[in-house]
């Protein structure tokens, strides 16, 4: 199964290449190839859940270890990366399928699909690679394509949003690159597993603390945690809707939160101060994001602010796990906190992706994003309305939808770990989230119509409806992850990767007994 690993990157990259070259001859090639490739990638991703050994390592260029020193680049498939790969490609497939109908109103379709494929290739690479510098390159591929995709409509507002995103993203990339350079200077290696071993031997020093702060700032900006969130509402609301779903649903997770988790659990030695910093950033984002979201009247901008808030839950859960591990607290509570964080990350990809697709369908049919100008859409667009309802219940944490269970895990872990304030905040934020989504429901979907032209809007086309239905079913279906049978296949391996921090290095460097 190891030989299949590089396909996860090569397939979307060559897809982008083929689309860019041949779209001059065959107009529709992008719309056919992209969903097809994404479907294959999704199947491949899910295949890796059933791998023979816990960790698979692929040596690019065939360069094996030389005296225990990794010379080449490795791809590593373990519990955490396979979980990320599965959600990235599943969302990629649904969003690209949705795009086929949605993107027809734009010009320059071929660039859209080529950039879409490149973005997916970048994200797959970030979560698969075992090399720090390689991770940086994949990160650049993913975010540069997203800059162009945000600006895709080339209206004034979109170009401004993209420019702001580029400037802040450029600063973040620079900070990350500086951190990587300092790590290489100090340890003399770029392989994450190897760095972990060297850092354990060297012990703590001032430089490493400095690098940790640099990386939190850099990846925190990519993940739009609160002091670094200024670009997200503009960028995520200006992009075409399937792209918003990809950006909010998976990009900020793959290049932001995943990188923080991988590097801080599996590479650095956990320290109390840094773990507490991450937890506090998560809590501040959770509260701040929802407070900023409540007052919004632009549908997609409101969703974008909720992304900050929901990612706050994820970072809070993972951060609490870090704090508990670093002070040597109960392992069971740490497992619960990290599982809650990861579970919420999967759930957020599904329901936030669905919400952006709903917003896209509404905008596609009515031409507006302003909630005050809508009303009564449940009569005209019953499918969009019903799927929106399930997603909004999921994001507000109403049982039996998936959001309820992941939030419950985080809150139980917070209470058991003694983070009482965080537990109360998590409950309060959930209630405000519910209020905010009921507002959208009240203004957009029920009541009388406030549209300027009083004509009847029809339902969105089939190509847009099907992904929304699949995601709505998933909003219910993912609740099953709480059952031990499914949890052991999908979630537990990822949690184990993070809990047993040093186990990551051993199979990669061949240190197994």
């Amino acid at each position, binding site marked *: 199964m190891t*030989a299949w690993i*590089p396909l996860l990157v*090569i397939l979307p*990259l*060559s897809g982008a*290449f083929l689309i*860019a*070259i041949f779209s*001059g001859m065959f107009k529709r090639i992008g719309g056919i190839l992209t969903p097809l490739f994404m479907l294959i990638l999704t199947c491949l991703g899910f295949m890796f859940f059933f791998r023979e050994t816990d960790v698979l390592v*692929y*040596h*690019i*260029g*065939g*360069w094996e270890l*030389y*005296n225990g*020193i990794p*010379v*080449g*680049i490795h791809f590593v498939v373990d519990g955490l990366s396979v979980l990320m790969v599965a959600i990235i490609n599943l969302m990629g497939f649904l969003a690209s399928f949705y795009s086929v109908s949605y993107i027809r109103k734009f*010009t*320059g379709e071929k*660039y*859209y699909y*080529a*950039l879409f494929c*490149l973005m997916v290739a970048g994200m797959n*690479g970030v979560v698969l690679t075992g090399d720090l*510098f*390689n991770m940086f*390159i*994949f990160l*650049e*591929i993913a975010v*540069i*394509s997203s*800059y*162009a*995709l945000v*600006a*895709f409509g*080339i209206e004034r507002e979109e*170009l401004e949003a*993209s420019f702001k995103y580029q400037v802040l993203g450029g600063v973040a990339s620079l900070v990350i690159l500086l951190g990587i350079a*300092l790590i290489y*200077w*100090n*340890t*003399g*290696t*770029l392989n994450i597993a*190897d760095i972990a071993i*060297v850092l354990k031997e060297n012990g703590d*020093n*001032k*430089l490493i*603390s*400095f*690098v940790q702060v640099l990386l939190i700032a850099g990846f925190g900006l990519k993940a739009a945690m609160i002091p670094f969130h200024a670009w997200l509402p503009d960028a995520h609301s200006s992009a075409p809707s399937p792209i918003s779903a990809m950006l909010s649903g998976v990009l900020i997770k793959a290049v932001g939160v995943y990188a923080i988790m991988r590097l801080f659990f599996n590479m650095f030695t956990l320290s109390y101060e840094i773990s507490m910093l991450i937890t506090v950033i998560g809590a501040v984002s959770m509260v701040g994001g929802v407070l900023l979201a409540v007052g919004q009247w632009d549908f997609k901008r409101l969703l974008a602010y909720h992304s900050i808030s929901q990612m706050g839950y994820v970072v809070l859960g993972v951060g609490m796990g870090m704090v508990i591990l670093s002070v040597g607290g109960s392992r069971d509570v740490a497992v619960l906190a990290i599982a809650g964080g990861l579970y919420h990350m999967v759930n957020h990809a599904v329901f936030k992706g669905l919400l952006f697709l709903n917003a896209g369908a509404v905008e596609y049919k009515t031409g507006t994003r302003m909630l005050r100008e809508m009303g009564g859409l449940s009569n005209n667009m019953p499918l969009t309305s019903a799927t929106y309802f399930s997603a909004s219940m999921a994001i507000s944490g109403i049982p039996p939808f998936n959001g309820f269970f992941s939030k419950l895990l985080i809150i139980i872990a917070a209470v058991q770990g003694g983070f009482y304030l965080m537990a109360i905040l998590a409950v309060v934020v959930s209630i405000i989230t519910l209020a905010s989504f009921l507002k959208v429901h009240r203004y957009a979907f029920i009541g009388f119509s406030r549209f300027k032209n009083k004509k009847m809007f029809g339902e969105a086309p089939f190509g847009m409806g099907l992904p929304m239905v699949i995601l709505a079913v998933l909003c219910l279906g993912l609740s099953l992850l709480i059952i031990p049978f499914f949890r052991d296949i999908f979630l537990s391996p990822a949690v184990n990767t993070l809990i047993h921090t040093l186990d990551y290095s051993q199979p990669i460097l061949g240190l197994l007994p």
Partner: protein
Amino acid sequence: MSILIDGLLALLVIYLALQSLLAPRLTQSVFLFFAFGLALALAWIRLGAVDVAITEAAIAAGFLGVLFLDALRDFSPSFSKKPKNLEYDQKSLAKNDTRGHLLPRMALGLGLGLFLLISLEAVWKIPQGGGLTAAAGALLPESGVEHPVTAVLLNFRAYDTWLEMGVILLGLLAVFAAGGIKGYRKPPVAAQDPLLRQVILFFTPVLFLFGAFLLYIGKTGPGGAFQAGVLWGAIGILLHMGGWPVFAVIPRWLRQLLLTVGLGFFMVLGFLFVAAGNALFEYPPAYAGILILLVETLAAISIAATLSAIFAYLNQMKYPSQTL
């Protein structure tokens, strides 16, 4: 003696950087920036990093310099393509008055200074680790080339290099997607600076030969595809500036071939290795040297084509659209 030279060079670099930021007029800024690039290249040579020095000279002083000169020309009254610029006097070359931004500037300066101090504190006297140098040296005979930097770039970490070429092509795609122009068109014939044309005619073969030399020498010494690609790209841009729009007049298929041949060949090569039962980018040792040279040449061509393509595309936005 050498500490004196190094100290003076370090002071010169900082002085030129500050002067280039603070110069009152754009022309001065641009020329000080050239000087800064060259001084920085010298500093890299003193540090023993000849590769970085060549890249610095090619990109900062050469490539960026050409772009800046083109930007300056738009402001200049005699060569501007926009008639309204003729009305401006020399003042248009002066920077905007920014007295109102004193407070944010001071805050930013203080913040950056603090960051610099903290970073110096953090990196002070931290021992440098060195695990990879010995390993890369030991594996050099297997890699097919004799220079460790080339071996790392095109064999040990060939995958990274392939992706970097993808990033350059991605930049072009992003410009196309956000640019909103469909395809290239022939630019209108405009008055050209005769002196510039002569200089360009003289420099084109020199730049080409120097690029080819850098490409070939990469096997045994500092140099390689990226440096050569940048120099060749500068040729394309210079020709466009001098009124020979090579990139806009060649047929579409040739343009696409030039742009994608580097990445595409690398990709096909990778697939062939996999099909032959090796790992991705695992060169057969016997052919590694020749394959690497081929990959580098095609990569340099694609890099040069991409750089000229971006320039040509952005440049044609300046023409008034009725002269189609």
